[in-house]
């Protein structure tokens, strides 16, 4: 089971839309638990989307992205069978990666 769910849709004009839903707490470090202890910050810092071996978009982010992040991107030139890879790195050094082929 992966923490990343990918949906791919071919739009008009040679455009491919990639949507990603990621399971991640995105803790800011400001919140407190029931006992009043601070919940440590835990959030994704980098996200990369690749079309085959080419990076389409890479990004940096902080805890201002909502819990269980959702992203959508668009790019040109996606063909049936091409591979889309999405990966992330968080502030604790965890990473995850998931791939899906265009139908």
């Amino acid at each position, binding site marked *: *089971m992966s923490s990343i769910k990918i949906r791919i849709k071919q739009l008009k004009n040679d455009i491919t839309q990639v949507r990603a839903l990621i399971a991640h707490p995105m803790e800011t470090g400001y919140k407190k638990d029931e006992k009043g202890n601070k919940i440590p910050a835990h959030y994704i810092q980098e996200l990369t989307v690749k079309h085959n071996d080419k990076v389409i978009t890479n990004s940096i982010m902080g805890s201002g992205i*909502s819990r269980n992040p959702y992203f959508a991107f668009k*790019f*040109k030139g996606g063909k049936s069978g091409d591979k889309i890879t999405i990966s992330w*790195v968080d502030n604790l050094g965890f*990473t*995850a990666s998931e791939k899906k082929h265009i139908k």
Partner: protein
Amino acid sequence: MIETRRKFLKKFISTTVYFSTLTSGVFYSISAKAAWPSAYFRENSYRKTLKELFGDQKLIETSDIQLKLPKIAENGAVVPVIITSKLENTETITILADKNPVPLIAQFNFADTAIAYVSARIKMAETSNVVVIAKAGDNYYFKKRKVKVTIGGCGG
């Protein structure tokens, strides 16, 4: 020697248990931490964050950045945003919320085959402006939109 091995195994197992508890069953792998510009994501005023990100660069207001945002966000923890830049050669899109403790939310770089488009969900601490800055060629453009937040999304 066997003892050392035992100790090692014990340690290994407890670490594994810790991580699987932490991530509640979702599989992650660990890797070395990459360089991430912590200065950009410091708790800071909006103005200082802008300076950190763009120096003294002039920011030009534009209508060529299309922003789709709710006028009123009932829950500041989840504010959907859709951004499209119609500016030619848009290389990066930066999203900020000017009253968040950490004003910078994210910055996206786009390759030549990418459309300067991104959809995301962001947190907003209180009613404030969402500011989107696009770098196109050598220029920096911005568009902002006020979002009324009923319940803040950053605190406890």
